């Protein structure tokens, strides 16, 4: 596949903030949140400048209006507000506003000092520009409020996961011991009652299965809290996908699932923890199989791409990719029913599952996300227009492990 330019990934503000359960990551998020809360210095200067200009224009504008430019200014109001509504035009609106102040000042100065550069056109433009300034100012405020909100949500989420991780290890130990007592006891009874009536044997089998279910939940919780260290090596991603397919071969064959692969053979080797990445693919493939049932189709694609604008792209601390960064993308499409719209925002939450009791622990996708984020990558899930779900994973080509210390000390942006 060629290096296609990637369009903006669907917006999912939660994704890059959903950190691991590591205390270091939590600290990093606190720092990120505080940075946004205190408004970055560049933005602060810009805002103060805009505020000063707005105050100045408020004083100057009524004077300018005395020259009967009311209609022009009212007509100017609408496009100025429209301009400010789109975030990326906020700064243009601000510049126009600053221009207004300059023009108003020139006009008034020329009147006052009887200078020769006075022009009626100045007054047609000036009110329009002054309004743009005000709108731009509000746009900036709104932008920072939105960023603050995102940072706060990320912080809350990270803290929740952090305490969950700490709790998990403790709970696991306290629960696994009694489970062992129950399981061994039931096994002793099962052997002793091998000739008992069927009801008794069914009861004992149910009890054994129940212990197995409880253990599965606890073990999932344990490994979720453990996903904190990477064993990085130079890994062939396509080969890892093939190895993962082999691991779920039995399930794929059982459900007669067809696999369509389009793997880009020119991919560079990536710095990955092969075992953990394999765990991600196995989880995703198993999910797809469970979602589709029999006779489905799974399409797997790998490709090189360039990150365009999107939720994880930028120069801020928490942005995973810089604009135009080269990445490797894996897409896994299934032909299942897709994910209900109301669940899309919850699929990565720990313990969220739609599978029947005993089938899913609700930790699979949380673990996947955690592992991908530890590699500095990103994962998202959405529905395809033609039906079925699509998982997209973005891998950094130059991966560095998001260790506690590094996450805390990172000064990107």
């Amino acid at each position, binding site marked *: 596949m060629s290096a296609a330019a990637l369009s903006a990934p669907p917006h999912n503000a939660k994704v890059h903030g959903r950190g691991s359960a590591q205390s270091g990551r939590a600290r990093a998020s606190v720092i990120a949140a505080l940075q946004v809360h205190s408004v970055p210095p560049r933005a602060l200067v810009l805002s103060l400048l805009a505020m000063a200009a707005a105050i100045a224009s408020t004083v100057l504008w009524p004077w300018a209006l005395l020259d009967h430019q009311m209609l022009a200014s009212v007509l100017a109001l609408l496009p100025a507000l429209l301009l400010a509504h789109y975030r990326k035009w906020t700064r243009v609106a601000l510049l126009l506003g600053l221009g207004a102040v300059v023009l108003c000042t020139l006009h008034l100065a020329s009147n006052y000092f009887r200078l020769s550069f006075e022009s009626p056109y100045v007054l047609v433009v000036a009110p329009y520009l002054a309004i743009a300034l005000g709108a731009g100012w509000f746009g900036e405020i709104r932008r920072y409020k939105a960023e603050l909100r995102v940072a706060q949500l990320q912080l809350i989420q990270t803290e929740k996961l952090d305490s969950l991780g700490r709790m998990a290890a403790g709970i696991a130990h306290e629960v696994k011991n009694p489970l062992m007592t129950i399981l061994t006891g039931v*096994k002793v009874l099962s052997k002793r009652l091998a000739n008992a009536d069927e009801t008794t044997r069914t009861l004992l089998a149910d009890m054994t299965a129940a212990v197995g279910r409880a253990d599965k939940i606890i073990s999932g919780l344990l490994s979720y809290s453990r996903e904190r260290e990477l064993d990085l090596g130079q890994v062939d991603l396509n080969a890892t996908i093939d190895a993962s397919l082999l691991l779920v071969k039995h399930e794929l064959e059982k459900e007669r699932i067809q696999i369509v692969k389009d793997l880009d053979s020119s991919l560079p080797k990536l710095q990955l923890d092969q075992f953990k990445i394999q765990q991600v693919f196995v989880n995703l493939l198993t999910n797809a199989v469970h979602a589709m049932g029999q006779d489905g189709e799974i399409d797997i694609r790998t490709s090189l791409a360039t990150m365009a604008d999107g939720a994880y792209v930028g120069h801020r601390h928490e942005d995973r990719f810089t604009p135009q960064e080269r990445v490797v993308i894996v897409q896994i499409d299934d032909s299942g029913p897709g994910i209900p719209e109301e669940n899309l925002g919850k699929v990565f939450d720990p313990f969220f599952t739609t599978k029947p009791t005993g089938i899913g622990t609700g930790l699979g996708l949380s673990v996947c996300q955690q592992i991908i984020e530890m590699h500095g990558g990103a994962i998202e899930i959405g529905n395809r227009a033609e039906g079925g779900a699509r998982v997209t994973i973005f891998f950094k080509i130059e991966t560095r492990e998001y260790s506690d210390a590094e996450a805390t000390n990172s000064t990107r942006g």
Partner: protein
Amino acid sequence: MQKRRILLVDDEVGITRALALYLQENGDCEVRVENAGSRALETAHEFRPDLIFLDLVMPDADGSALAAAIKSDPKLNATPIIFLTALVSQRETGGSAKQIGGHPFLAKPVDPDIVLSYIDKYAGNHVGR
């Protein structure tokens, strides 16, 4: 055939009671239970087991330190040790490939039949006495 001598060291009385019963009734084993980690070395000396199952976390003893003490004891150092622990999940044990301090380990809760298969594997060739 002589019975395999198995020492179970675990502070959980429920586990040792049930597991001892299972191994005795289904595995042709002679089982000794020690619920106090601090007395495990003493009990091992007295019982001279073919295989020791050792809990990793006990209130009065650290399983890995205990294993090191057993391994440095001239009379016990040939006795195989298998850790039985609630600190890891079954998936993390990776069969018998992974080890803690050179000893294989099993994750609780473990099916007692798997415990028996470990006894076959590790205590079968051991001549401890």
